[in-house]
């Protein structure tokens, strides 16, 4: 952690002691009254100062006069007060203080203040939109800014948007701007069966189940003091939602096979490409779980709805590589494309571009590369494209698999003029499977 030069103006010796412990990793000066506080502020050697308002000199708010002094020297001033009436807060901000908190629970207060200070400092130094989340779209910028405003807080954030729009990237940026000391821990909930997801999240003790030869620290524990990013949250089972909800609310949980509770203070950011309200209506997401994960919802638009981002994204993703120049026609081609794979597709396009093209990119080269990307996308998603996925979500995986095999069998029959033996040998399937498919097809046809 960055060592900061901090001033604390506080008349209460016990409060000073508490602050000394909380700020032990920084260089801290203490002032017991307004006059010594003033002298230290004027020395200008502090980046941040914590000011008590009532400094034991009979004046109810002698700490107030130090705020403009600190502001004038560019010191980030934080008022800590036992008074948190609207008038006091308003006056403090009016005088130029940067932060205000009510005394109590300093362990969390001090950490949050420093995170907000670092966040502000970092924000002034780098522009998030040119380095971390490339977008020139005003609506998307507003969404990201809103999310970053809450980065240092504990507020859970739900990121919505189609696949490839940068949900994981945004979650990571929020974590990096949060100032949280712990790690960013991501898990894709759709990549695991229910049992495996439980083991991955909660961890397990050696011997908890067959095959658990060693203990495993789960993601919840790994995210202690950090951020737990739950991608594809819509695929999580109701049972897992219940279990996770309890862990989020209580900051404690039992790893599988363990009777000892573990504690972990993680912040939750989740993401999904599904319509959350439909999931709730369909009984696939618990309402209390939804309430717990969606303190703030951020929706990222598909790239087709923010075409102005295509060229800046290509420039940013190609940074550090060969400097490319696009002819005006090539640019038109790029802007005319819909980018169904969103930023992920742009990334692949840039990789191909950097690998094989000349410095000057022609419209023909763009057409060729887009075709390659599309072909790759088609190959990769043939078994699980958006339509298949939606169908499986609505009807279950078994129904989706049945539909898939029925269509392949029907095509096999068409291409072999209805010869079943040919289909059996070409598709390497059993008679039972073929007849089950035929029965389903007949069933569909006979339905009114």
């Amino acid at each position, binding site marked *: 952690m960055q060592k900061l030069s901090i001033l604390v103006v506080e008349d*209460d*010796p*016990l*409060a000073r*002691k*508490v602050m000394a*412990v909380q700020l032990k990793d920084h260089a801290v000066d203490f002032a017991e009254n307004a006059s010594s506080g003033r002298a230290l502020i004027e020395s200008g050697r502090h980046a941040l100062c914590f000011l*008590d308002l*009532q400094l034991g000199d009979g004046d*109810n708010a002698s700490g107030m006069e130090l705020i403009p002094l600190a502001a004038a020297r560019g010191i980030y001033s934080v008022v800590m*007060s*036992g*008074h948190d009436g609207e008038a006091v807060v308003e006056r403090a901000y009016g005088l130029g203080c940067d932060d205000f908190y*009510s*005394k*109590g*629970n*300093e*362990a969390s207060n001090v950490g949050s203040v420093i995170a907000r200070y670092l966040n502000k400092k970092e924000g002034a130094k780098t522009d998030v939109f040119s380095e971390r989340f490339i977008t020139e779209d005003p609506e998307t910028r507003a969404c990201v800014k809103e999310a970053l405003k809450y980065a240092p807080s504990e507020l859970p954030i739900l990121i919505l948007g189609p696949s490839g729009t940068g949900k994981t990237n945004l979650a990571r940026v929020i974590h990096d701007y949060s100032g949280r000391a712990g790690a960013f821990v991501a898990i894709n909930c759709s990549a695991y069966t229910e049992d495996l997801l439980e083991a991955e999240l909660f961890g397990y003790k050696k011997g908890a189940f067959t095959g658990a030869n060693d203990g495993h620290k789960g993601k919840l524990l790994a995210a202690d003091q950090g951020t737990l990013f739950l991608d594809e949250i819509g695929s999580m089972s109701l049972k897992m939602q219940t279990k996770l909800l309890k862990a989020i609310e209580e900051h404690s949980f039992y790893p599988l096979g363990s009777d000892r509770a573990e504690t972990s203070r993680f912040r939750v950011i989740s993401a999904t490409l599904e319509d959350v309200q439909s999931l709730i209506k369909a009984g696939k997401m618990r309402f209390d779980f939804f309430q717990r994960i969606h303190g703030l919802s951020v929706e990222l638009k598909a790239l087709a709805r923010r075409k102005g981002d295509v060229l800046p994204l290509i420039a940013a993703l190609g940074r550090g590589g060969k400097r490319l120049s696009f002819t005006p026609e090539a640019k038109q081609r790029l802007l005319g494309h819909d980018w169904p794979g969103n930023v992920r597709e742009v990334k692949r396009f840039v990789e191909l571009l950097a690998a094989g093209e000349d410095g000057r990119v022609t419209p023909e080269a763009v057409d060729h590369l887009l075709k390659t990307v599309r072909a790759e996308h088609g190959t990769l998603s043939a078994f699980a494209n958006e339509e298949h996925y939606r169908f499986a979500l609505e009807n279950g995986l078994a129904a989706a698999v049945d539909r898939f095999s029925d269509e392949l069998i029907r095509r096999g029959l068409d291409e072999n003029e209805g010869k079943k033996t040919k289909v059996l040998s070409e598709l390497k399937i059993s008679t039972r499977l073929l007849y089950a498919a035929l029965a389903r097809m007949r069933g569909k046809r006979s339905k009114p």
Partner: protein
Amino acid sequence: MTLDDLIHDVNSKCSSLKDAAKLLPAAAEPEYRELLTLMVRQSRALADALAAFERAP
């Protein structure tokens, strides 16, 4: 002392007492003693302030 001052005193002194108590389990010996001494002093000062307010007309 006004009621407003008393409320402020109770708020801020109790806050520091609670925060200091939370530090005790992890505090090593010299710091542990120092915290306890300061906590006792703080509690007495608060009790005195409350008693003075009670006695005031």
